[in-house]
C-alpha cells in the first residue's frame, strides 16, 4: 500500500499534511490518558461475536492477533512468530506462537489457547467468524507453542483472515470463568487491558503490565467514546475534550484543517461504495436466483447505460470535496495482494453511448428506477447527483431514503430495484468478492449467478502463487464489471483527526486506529 500517493488538496499550513499520512513519529513522553471518539458505540467486546468496525478499533488496543497488517498493507506476524508454513497440497498450515506473551489476566499464551480460540471462533453459536473459518477442518497443538491447522480444501485467504478478529486469541481461563459473559470481561494479549464499559458512554482500557512489549507502551489509559455526530466530534476535538476523532467525513476534515491545534492522519481504505442492482433476488438471500422483471434486471445494456450516465469524478468532487477516490471494482488499487483498477482507469461518463445502448435495448424512456439510499447526508447528496446525471441519459430515478436496518431487511429479501451497497473491505481480495458475487453468497443481495465468476472465486481461494492470484482477481473484476450487478462508485479514505500534542497514533489501510505507540509529544 502506497504511503505517499498525492493528495495536494490536503496541504494546509495548519496541518502540513500532504498525501497519505499514517502516523506521526515524534518522540512521546510516558503517561497520560488518550480519549478516542468513535462514530458509533461498539457492539460486543467478544472477538468471536463482534460485528462492527468501531469494535475492531477497540480490539486493536487490547486484543492482538496471530497476524497483523503493516503500513504497506502486508500481513506480518504478531502473536505468531513467523508467517505460516503451508504444505504442498495447501491443506496443512503450521505456525508457532510467541513464548513471552501473557493474557491480561496473567495466564500464559500457548498453542492450547490458540486451539481453544480458533475452535470457539469456528463453532460457537452466533459466531461472526464461522463463515471465514469454515474451511478449517481441525486445529491441534503440536507442542507447547506449535499449532497445526488442517483444511478441508486449500484456502489462501486464511492468513489474512487470521490478521483480523478470527486471529485474536482469548484467555482460556477467562473464557471458562465468564462463558458468554466474556464480552463484559474480555481478556487477550495486548498493550492495554479492559477496565470498564459504560454502554453508550465509554470503554476504558489501561496499560497492561503483562504485555510482552509493555516497556514501549507510553499511555496509562485509553478511553473510547462513541460520538456519532461528526460536527460534535469535531467540536470536542477543538475543545480538547477528546484527542483523536475516528472516521471523520470530508466536510469535517476540511473544517479541521483550519485549526492549528489539530492534525490529520489518513490512509486509503480497502472497502467500496456503490449501487447494487437487483438482477435475480426474488426469494431472498441464499435462495436460488429468479427472474426480476425490471429493465435494469432484464438487460445488461440498460445497466451499462446507467453506469455510463454517472460521472464518478463529479460525485467525488461535489459530495466529498475530492477527498475520496472514484472506484470501479471490488478490490482497492492499494491492495498489496492483488491491486484492483486504478481510479484513473474507471469508465468516463458517456451520455451519447448510454442513449444508444438504451435504444438498442428497446426500452421505453425514461426508464424508471427506484434507488434506496441510506438516510445519511452523504447518500442523500449522492442520490441527488445520480438522479440529475442519469436523467440526461434517459433514466427517471426516484430516491427512497431508507433507515439502515430496514434497508438490510428489504434488500436481503429482494424487495428493491437498486440500493446503495457498501463494504468496509478486507485485506484479501476474496473477502471483498466471494460473499457478494458468488451464487447464493451470504451477502449476494443482488441475486447474481454466474458460473464463471463462481469458478474464478474457487480458483482464487486455492491458488497459492501471488502472481497467478492477481490475474484471477483481475479477471474476476472484469467479469463483475460486465455483469454490473453492483456498480462501484467510490472508495472512502480513512480520515482521523488528532490533537497536535498527540503522536504515535497509527492509521493503516484496515481503517483501525492503533494506539500502542501513541502518547503525548515531548
Amino acid at each position: 500500500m502506497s504511503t505517499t500517493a498525492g493528495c495536494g488538496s490536503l496541504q494546509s499550513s495548519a496541518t502540513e499534511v500532504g498525501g497519505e499520512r499514517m502516523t506521526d513519529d515524534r518522540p512521546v513522553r510516558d503517561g497520560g490518558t488518550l480519549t478516542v471518539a468513535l462514530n458509533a458505540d461498539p457492539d460486543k467486546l467478544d472477538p468471536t461475536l463482534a460485528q462492527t468496525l468501531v469494535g475492531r478499533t477497540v480490539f486493536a488496543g487490547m486484543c492482538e492477533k496471530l497476524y497483523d497488517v503493516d503500513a504497506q498493507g502486508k500481513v506480518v506476524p504478531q502473536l505468531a512468530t513467523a508467517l505460516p508454513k503451508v504444505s504442498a497440497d495447501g491443506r496443512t498450515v503450521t505456525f508457532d506462537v510467541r513464548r513471552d506473551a501473557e493474557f491480561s489476566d496473567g495466564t500464559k499464551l500457548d498453542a492450547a489457547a490458540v486451539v481453544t480460540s480458533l475452535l470457539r471462533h469456528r463453532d460457537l453459536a452466533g459466531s461472526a467468524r464461522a463463515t471465514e473459518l469454515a474451511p478449517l477442518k481441525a486445529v491441534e497443538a503440536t507442542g507447547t507453542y506449535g499449532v497445526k491447522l488442517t483444511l478441508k480444501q486449500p484456502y489462501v485467504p486464511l492468513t489474512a483472515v487470521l490478521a483480523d478478529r478470527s486471529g485474536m486469541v482469548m484467555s482460556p481461563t477467562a473464557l471458562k470463568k465468564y462463558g458468554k459473559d466474556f464480552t463484559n470481561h474480555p481478556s487477550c494479549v495486548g498493550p492495554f487491558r479492559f477496565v470498564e464499559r459504560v454502554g453508550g458512554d465509554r470503554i476504558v482500557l489501561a496499560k497492561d503490565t503483562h504485555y510482552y512489549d509493555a516497556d514501549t507502551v507510553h499511555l496509562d489509559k485509553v478511553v473510547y467514546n462513541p460520538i456519532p455526530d461528526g460536527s460534535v466530534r469535531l467540536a470536542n476535538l477543538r475543545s480538547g475534550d477528546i484527542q483523536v476523532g475516528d472516521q471523520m467525513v470530508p466536510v469535517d476534515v476540511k473544517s479541521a484543517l483550519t485549526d492549528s491545534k489539530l492534525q490529520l492522519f489518513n490512509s486509503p481504505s480497502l472497502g467500496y461504495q456503490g449501487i447494487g442492482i437487483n438482477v435475480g433476488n426474488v426469494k431472498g438471500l441464499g435462495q436460488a436466483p429468479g427472474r426480476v422483471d425490471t429493465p435494469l434486471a432484464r438487460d445488461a445494456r440498460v445497466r451499462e447505460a446507467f453506469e455510463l450516465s454517472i460521472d464518478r469524478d463529479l460525485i467525488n468532487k461535489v459530495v466529498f470535496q475530492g477527498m475520496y477516490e472514484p472506484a470501479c471494482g471490488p478490490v482497492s488499487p492499494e491492495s498489496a495482494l492483488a491491486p484492483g483498477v486504478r481510479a484513473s482507469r474507471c469508465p468516463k461518463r458517456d451520455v451519447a453511448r448510454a442513449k444508444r445502448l438504451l435504444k438498442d435495448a428497446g426500452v421505453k424512456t425514461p426508464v424508471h428506477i427506484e434507488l434506496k439510499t441510506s438516510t445519511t447526508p452523504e447518500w442523500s447528496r449522492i442520490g441527488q447527483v445520480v438522479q440529475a446525471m442519469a436523467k440526461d441519459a434517459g433514466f427517471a430515478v426516484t430516491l427512497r431514503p431508507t433507515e439502515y436496518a430496514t434497508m438490510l431487511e428489504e434488500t436481503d429479501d429482494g424487495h428493491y430495484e437498486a440500493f446503495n451497497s457498501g463494504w468496509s473491505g478486507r485485506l484479501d481480495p476474496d473477502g471483498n468478492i466471494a460473499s457478494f458475487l458468488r451464487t447464493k453468497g451470504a451477502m449476494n443481495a443482488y441475486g447474481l449467478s454466474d458460473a464463471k465468476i463462481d469458478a474464478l472465486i474457487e480458483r482464487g481461494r486455492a491458488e497459492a502463487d501471488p502472481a497467478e492470484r492477481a490475474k484471477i482477481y483481475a479477471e474476476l473484476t472484469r467479469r463483475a464489471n460486465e455483469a454490473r450487478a453492483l456498480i462501484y462508485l467510490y472508495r472512502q479514505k480513512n480520515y482521523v483527526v488528532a490533537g497536535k500534542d498527540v503522536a504515535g497514533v497509527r492509521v493503516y489501510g484496515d481503517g483501525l486506529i492503533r494506539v500502542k505507540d501513541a502518547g503525548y509529544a515531548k
Partner: protein
Amino acid sequence: MASYVLTRVRQSVVTLFLVSIVVFAGIRALPGDPALALAGEERSPEALAAIRSEYGLDDNIVVQYGRFIGHALQGDLGTSSRTGLPVSDAIAQALPVTLELAALSLLLAVVLGIGAGVVAAVRRGRPAEWIANALALLGLSVPTFWLGIVLVLAFAIAVPVFAASGFVPFGTDPLDNLRRMVLPSIVLGSGLAAVVMRQTRAAMLDSLSADYVRTARAKGLSRREVIGGHALRNSLVTVVTVLGLQLGHLISGAVVTEQIFVLPGFGKLTIDAVFTRDYATLQGVVLCTSFAYIFINLLVDVAYSVIDPRIRLGGAR
C-alpha cells in the same frame, strides 16, 4: 387524601401494564429485522439463526411478551442484544445522567421562568416586560441543536469555561460534573424557562387584577406580601400544572441534548437502541420513561391538593 393517592396509584399500575403491551407490540411493528441489524456486515444465515435463537426472536409474539413481562416483574429487563450488558445496568447508568440533566434544567426554568414572569407582570408595559417577552420568544424559537452548537463554540472552544461533552458523576468530581452539565442544562432548560415565564406572567396578570389582591392591598399589606404571598401563590397552581406537563417533554427533549453533549443518558440510550433494533434495551427504556411520566403525573395531582386544598380529584372527598 390517602384513599385519593391509592386510587391514583391503582390507575397508574393499570396504565403501566397497558403501556407495556403497546410498547412491546409497537417495537415489534418497526420495520427492520433485529437479527440483521445486529449481524450487520457479516450476516451469514447460520449467524442470523443463532442470533434469533439466542434472543428468542423466533418465538411468537405472545410467548415473547410473556417471557418479557415475567422477567420484568422480577426486576430483570433482559440483556442488550448489541452490547451483551444487562439492560437494568444500562438504565441504572443512564438514569442519574438524565435525572440530573432534567433537575438542573427544571431548576433553571423555575428560577428564570418564574422570576422573569413575575417581573414581566409587575412591570407591565415597561422595558423589563419587553426584554422578558423577547427572551421568552427566543427561548421558544431557537432550535435545541443550534443553541447547543453555539454554546459549545462560545463557552467550550472560544472561551473554554465549560466542557463540550461527556459526563462525570457528581460524587466523583462535583466541579467537573457541573462544568459538563451547565451548557446542556441551559440548552434543555431554555425552552421550558420560556414556557414557564409566559405562564407565570399570564397567571400573575390575572391574579394582580383579582379582588383578593385588591383587598390585600387595601388592608395595607406590603408590596412584597401582596405579590409573593397572594398573587404568586395563587398563580403557582397553573405554573405547577405546566411544569408537570413539561417535565415529560424535558425527558424526551433530552434525546437531542444528550446527543449534542454526548451525555450517556436515557435519550442517547434510546436512540442507540432504536437504530440497532435492540429490543430489550428499547423496551426497558420506554417502560422506565412511561413509569416516570405516570409517576410525575401522580405527583402533580398530589401537588395540586397540597398547594390548593380545595382541589380534590378522583372522588376522594
